[in-house]
């Protein structure tokens, strides 16, 4: 438990093939469905839409207001039709963190598929009860005067963090900002760092 093993247990694989073949046979699963899933999640999505929305919000105060007040309308401008997102803003006074303690809800359309750690018991159990200790272990120290506000995704609303724009990026264009904005910053387990300090 807790290890990200490669997942090739022959018993599991045989169960998947069995169900897959029966669903193909019954016309429930399309013959190209698995290939389409791989294409969609490996090639076509990822944290890019979320990062683009954040970069645009940093560059354009009107877009930022729209992203916070009406995420559906803001995402439509990036050609994404997604009505179930809430965007929560990090400020000097508040640091936001997203979790799903009951399963692993995550805003797939803007962030892609979740990393394994997001779905594991260690993160899901601790994010609500000791988020500062958890964040410190993950490399982010949130000073005590700053509130840690955790969003437990218990319904169908999904949450994405709008991180603070780091100092030293004032002269960067929107397109130059996008690659600085990591998935982890959009979940709230990291902050965005200027390029010089990035790994």
């Amino acid at each position: 438990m807790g290890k990200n093993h490669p997942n090739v247990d022959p018993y599991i694989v045989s169960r998947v093939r069995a169900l897959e073949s029966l669903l193909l046979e019954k016309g429930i699963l399309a013959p190209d469905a698995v290939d389409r899933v791989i294409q969609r999640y490996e090639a076509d999505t990822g944290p890019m839409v979320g990062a683009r929305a954040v970069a645009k919000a940093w560059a354009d105060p009107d877009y930022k207001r729209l992203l916070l007040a009406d995420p559906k309308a803001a995402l439509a401008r990036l050609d994404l039709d997604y009505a179930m997102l809430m965007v929560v803003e990090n400020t000097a006074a508040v640091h936001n963190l997203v979790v799903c303690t009951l399963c692993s809800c995550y805003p797939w359309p803007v962030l892609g598929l979740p990393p394994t750690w997001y779905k594991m018991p260690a993160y899901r159990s601790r994010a609500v009860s000791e988020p500062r200790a958890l964040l410190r272990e993950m490399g982010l120290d949130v000073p005590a005067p700053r509130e840690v506000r955790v969003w437990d995704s218990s319904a169908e609303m999904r949450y994405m963090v709008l991180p603070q724009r780091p100092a030293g990026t004032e002269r960067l264009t929107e397109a130059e900002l996008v690659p600085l904005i990591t998935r982890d910053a959009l979940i709230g387990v990291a902050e965005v760092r200027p390029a010089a300090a990035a790994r």
Partner: protein
Amino acid sequence: MDGVHDLGGMQGFGPVEREENEPVFHAVWEAAVLAMQHAGRSRGLFNIDEFRHGIERMAPAHYLRATYYEKWLEGITRLLVEKGVVGAEELAARRVFFEGKPDASSATTLTGPPPARGAFNPRWAEDFIRETGATPRFAPGDAVCTREMHPPGHTRLPRYARGKRGVVHLCHGIHVFPDTNAHGQGEQPQPLYSVRFDARELWGESAEPNQAVHIDLWESYLLPGR
């Protein structure tokens, strides 16, 4: 149900283990499980709440041991067998077949073209809001208290937030109610709220300083605040 899936606030799982350069899928079968879940939901064979409850009914030790997509496989298989979409016997026989032929294509067993199926619902992935015209009982700023309840079935009121006092942050509109939708009792949509809880209310003297948790809770989980 007070299952092992309800992890908020549990202790003993150790540090978060991060995998550098994690692939989207660790094996093709994971993508196959995702495709089957999409197929089952988009064709209306099961809904998201039935799916989640299917996973919650795993034996606790198995739940903790299983990887994410193994949990999904458990949930999907349980529902499709319960609903009679696939038979337990044909599934077991087919598993033995593929255990002996691990590299065979899943189309190997096809004897003819699959039957044509009706169109699926293209909005299934986000179809949870119901504009019923119901008036929310609570408004932003209202003090509320969550019910202290331990239903045997599916619920989205986490154990750590039962019998706790909070404040309504906002109303998300009228949403499908998982506690009934997971059990064939209909959608019974009701107002959904973001409720803010101070960490001290949730964790008492063990709370970290200056922390709050916002949880999305349906109206029937809430009572007027004390």
